[in-house]
């Protein structure tokens, strides 16, 4: 424990990251460049999220880490253990008990509060990247609010599939200004981006931090005649019976058997606890 500074990163680095976070909060949806550090895990495992968590954690915090909604998957377990070791903070699996929640690909089902910070791991922060490969050009497009191209992508979806088939990393416009990639959360979670909690996004490899402050307007892009639809599997959870939560499809045998269960394991467990 004494071999590390609290939460692994040195204080100067944390200051630098906090400065980027403050700028991100001041300009919602704007991607703030920051000097991302080498972390003791590979890129793609959440190095951006870990650095943001490291900069916001205090010794009194209670940390929860989820990966695809679950507390017990490899990525979540290893990051949770990492912070237990280098910050010695309390950890929990209960959404309502956590003060800092680091997440990959989901927003918890339970409504978050003003006391909580949600930290996202972001692989590719630039929503325009697959349409416009030049960083100089995408920066200019953000600066000048030239977002027509984003709708070209949605147009292509409809022309090819009859509906907007983008199901995750669904582009949003923040506070009527910046178009933002909400990280690969399912579009079912998009309405929850308008939250009471502070939401921070960290992309380690791409060296970007951005933020959505509490109660910020977040609108999913769509067409007038093809409005945004936060769809989910048309089932109820096989374990807790929830009708309102995002479901994972689990293959249970090699004869076509399958079941749908809550992807948010803490939500599912709490419902089963209440039912019992």
């Amino acid at each position, binding site marked *: 424990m004494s071999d590390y500074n609290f939460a692994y990163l040195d204080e100067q680095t944390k200051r630098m990251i906090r400065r980027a976070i403050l700028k991100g909060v001041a300009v919602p949806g704007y991607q703030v460049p920051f000097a991302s550090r080498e972390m003791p895990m590979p890129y793609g495992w959440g190095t951006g999220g870990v650095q943001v968590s490291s900069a916001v954690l205090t010794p009194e915090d209670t940390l929860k880490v989820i990966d695809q909604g679950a507390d017990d998957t490899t990525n979540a377990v290893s990051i949770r253990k990492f912070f237990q070791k280098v910050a010695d903070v309390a950890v929990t699996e209960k959404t309502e008990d956590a003060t800092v929640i680091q997440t990959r690909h989901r927003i918890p089902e339970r409504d978050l509060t003003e006391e909580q910070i949600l930290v996202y791991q972001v692989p590719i922060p630039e929503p325009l990247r697959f*349409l416009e490969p030049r960083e100089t050009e995408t920066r200019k497009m953000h600066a*000048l609010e*030239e977002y*027509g*191209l984003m*709708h*070209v992508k949605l*147009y*292509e979806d*409809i*022309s*090819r599939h009859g509906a907007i088939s983008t199901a995750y990393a669904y582009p949003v416009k923040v506070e009527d200004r910046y178009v933002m990639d909400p990280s690969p959360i399912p579009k079912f979670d998009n309405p929850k981006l308008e939250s009471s909690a502070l939401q921070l996004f960290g992309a380690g490899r791409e060296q970007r931090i951005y933020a959505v402050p509490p109660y910020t307007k977040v609108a999913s892009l769509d*067409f*007038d*005649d*093809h409005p945004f639809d936060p769809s989910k599997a048309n089932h109820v959870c096989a374990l807790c019976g929830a009708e309102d939560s995002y479901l994972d499809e689990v293959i249970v045998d090699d004869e076509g058997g399958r079941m749908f269960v809550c992807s948010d394991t803490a939500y599912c467990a709490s419902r089963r606890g209440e039912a019992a």
Partner: protein
Amino acid sequence: MTPPLLEVQNLTKRYGARIGCADVSFRLYPGEVMGIVGESGSGKSTLLNCLAGQLEPDLGRVLFDTRAEGPKDTLTMSEPERRMLGRTDWAFVHQNPRDGLRMRVSAGGNVGERLMAVGARHYGDIREAAVDWLGRVEIDADRVDDRPAAFSGGMQQRLQIARNLVTGPRLVFMDEPTGGLDVSVQARLLDLLRGLVRRMGLSAIIVTHDLAVVRLLADRLMVMKEGHVVETGLTDQVLDDPQHAYTQLLVSSVLQV
């Protein structure tokens, strides 16, 4: 008399010590098509790129008659304003359609991009406009969801023209629009362009080394050599009675079949 749509004054662009184009001045009136001819390296494309705001000239003024505020120097206006012009009142047809098209986006998306860039948010309307414009450039409506990569060279060039004209621009820049196409496809494209230009009352600046193209399309002609304009005049006047030695050479170099 109506004011000119575009007025160019003493436009000069140098590449270090070398001259790109020097001291070019002309006026373009609404509905007029101006041809710029000259051999490779004569500064035609440099001039066109300076006019279209893609290159920054060293000297001179380019006054464009904007809809809202009248004549305005496009070189000193702000970048957002210039880029806005670039996707509304201006159009740029590249020699190579790959430079002007998004090859991984369907034909309909390519045509619709400019509409969405200026705020169209109704899928049905965008698609209708795209199909309408594909028809106008003689591409079958059932190709609307195909990518340009599946199109022939001539079709790609026609698609590029549709994509550019869909927002009803007033000034079209064309850089060798028929380059790289075989003669029968060229003839069809020229026929189409001539029809569109006349019907929509477009003004256009066409850069080419192909005298047949300007003979068919252009009202006026500007001959360039080594960065300078050596002769200007009505198209048939310049082509049938060339005065400058270089123009005489150019006209007499055309192969007769």
